[in-house]
């Protein structure tokens, strides 16, 4: 089987799930990596190191910034001329647009956020969560090439073979941009929750440390945010000791404690880490749907009846401001850091 694998990157920073897609494609046969973007040849070389049989590199000013239309048209043109059986992409907000548009061009279908794939009677059957993960559906696509976007951390990541080389073929871009990028400001704290193996999250509870006295001159809301920042510092210390990422509930984000990019749940990120530690999160359904497939869930909350404990394997009912720093110290000791 011949598979295209779209390597999703933003200014050269690759979404690691792209390599998981590449590994899966290799297991099916020939894997051709697609790398788009001006000056993206470093990404193309990395794709070879992760095992791509060939890289099609759209290094062209028309593809300088990601924009849905020229990227989709370039993908469509390549798929038309080289006729892959399957097109794999990591699930990101960019690839949803891209796969959706290109599949429409080719009169084919897209399966988004797939968590497992099997081949039955030479047909690809993809399993994907629907209704916020309350159900799974198996789906098939009657047209070719089939587009499938993979949820991060559900397929093994191939080993990187440093120094592996191969063919990088430059391809022409379709310059049919309908939008212009006029500005960009980087997020104050970039976090990649989808690819994190360990996530430590904070909720509304992180702002409730009664033993802290905010600096004078803050109004009530400012004092709450100041308290929350102290609380999230503890959450961050634990995440750092574990080499993990910091997540948050919607209540914490809406409260202005932490930027939206950290939000786990229905309106944030759906994550599948190996370990998820929820600190001061009661567990509204909107949060639970975002993290319930974590391998191991640990919850720390002062309310023993909090719904989060229904998903947690281990729980501590108590004061997170005492427990979380103690956990950080205990992990540091055990992990020898």
């Amino acid at each position, binding site marked *: 089987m011949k598979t295209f694998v779209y390597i999703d990157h933003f200014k050269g920073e690759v979404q690691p799930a792209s390599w998981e897609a590449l590994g899966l494609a290799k297991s099916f046969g020939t894997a051709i990596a697609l790398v788009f973007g001006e000056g993206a040849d470093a990404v193309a070389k990395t794709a070879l190191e992760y095992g791509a049989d060939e890289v099609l590199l759209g290094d062209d000013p028309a593809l300088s910034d990601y924009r*849905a239309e020229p990227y989709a048209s370039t993908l469509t043109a390549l798929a038309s001329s080289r006729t892959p059986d399957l097109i794999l992409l990591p699930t990101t907000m960019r690839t949803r647009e891209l796969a959706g548009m290109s*599949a429409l061009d080719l009169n084919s279908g897209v399966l988004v956020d797939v968590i497992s794939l099997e081949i039955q009677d030479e047909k690809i059957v993809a399993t994907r969560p629907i209704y916020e993960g309350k159900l799974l559906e198996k789906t098939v696509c009657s047209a070719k090439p089939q587009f499938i976007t993979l949820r991060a951390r559900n397929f093994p990541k191939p080993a990187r073979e440093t120094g592996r080389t191969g063919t990088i073929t430059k391809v022409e871009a379709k310059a049919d941009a309908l939008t212009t990028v006029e500005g960009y*400001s980087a997020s104050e704290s970039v976090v990649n929750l989808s690819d994190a193996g360990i996530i430590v999250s904070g909720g509304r509870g992180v702002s409730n440390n009664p033993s802290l006295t905010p600096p004078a001159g803050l109004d009530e809301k400012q004092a709450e945010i100041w308290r929350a920042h102290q609380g999230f510092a503890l959450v961050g210390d634990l995440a750092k000791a574990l080499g993990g990422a910091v997540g948050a509930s919607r209540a914490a984000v809406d409260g202005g404690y932490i930027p939206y990019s950290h939000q786990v749940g229905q309106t944030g990120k759906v994550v599948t880490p190996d370990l998820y530690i929820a600190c001061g999160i009661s567990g509204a359904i909107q949060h639970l749907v975002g993290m319930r497939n974590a391998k191991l869930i640990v919850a720390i909350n002062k309310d023993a009846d909090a719904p989060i404990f229904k998903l947690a394997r281990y729980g501590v009912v108590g004061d997170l401001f005492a427990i979380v720093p103690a956990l950080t110290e205990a992990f540091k000791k055990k992990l020898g850091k």
Partner: protein
Amino acid sequence: MKIIACVKQVPDSEAKVKAENGQVSWGDAPLVINPFDEFAVEGALQQKEALGGTVTALCIGPASAKDALKHALAMGADNAILVSDAALSTLDTAGAARVLAAAVKKIGDVDMVLFGRQTLDDGSGITAAQTARVLGWPLLGLVGQIKVDAGSVTVERVIDEGRQTVKAKLPAVLSVVQSIGEARYPSFMGIRKASKAEIPVWSLSDISTSAPAAIVTRTELITPPSREVVCEFITGETPADIAETLVGKILAEKVL
């Protein structure tokens, strides 16, 4: 400005959804407007307030989906249209995009079509992109701010890596995220107006199209096994004791 907000009706987030005889069942849980689509209605109303014009809520669904449209009307939308046809029972995302695009063309002279980021049911989050592609209009995805000026729209996109300012000519298709602002609650007057509203129902022949054949089909529906977890509560004399026990348990799980 002629603005369309596309909405869908879905089971409420609290609903216990399960597979029953190969069909999706949510028991007697209420059906609501897809929560992400409320941001699309909110964004549309903000633009109407800034620039004048009309907001039309557009939905594909059975007759009962009129309730989702009534929610949009109660929030302040001027009109609502339901596309409903027996031939639409098996619609995939591309098919939905083709039907929505046909309805947008039938409405005519539209400046902007707004979507939510994704729906709670299928959740693919690709309908806005596919509708833009069918119409041949620019797509502005994940929009948190909208500014219209002299036939163009400039938006701030909320992406994982930060914020991006992007400009396009109108007409355009936008998907809107919660940074647009909290969706307004329907007013008392709005609810009264919505309850009296006659919502036109368009069939496929009304929008001069036929039912698109589904390319993606479901072969099996599975209720995932419920997580049989019983929480083991860790206790101890001091936080340090609790932490030591808990760390021992976590490391013994060998997930790290």
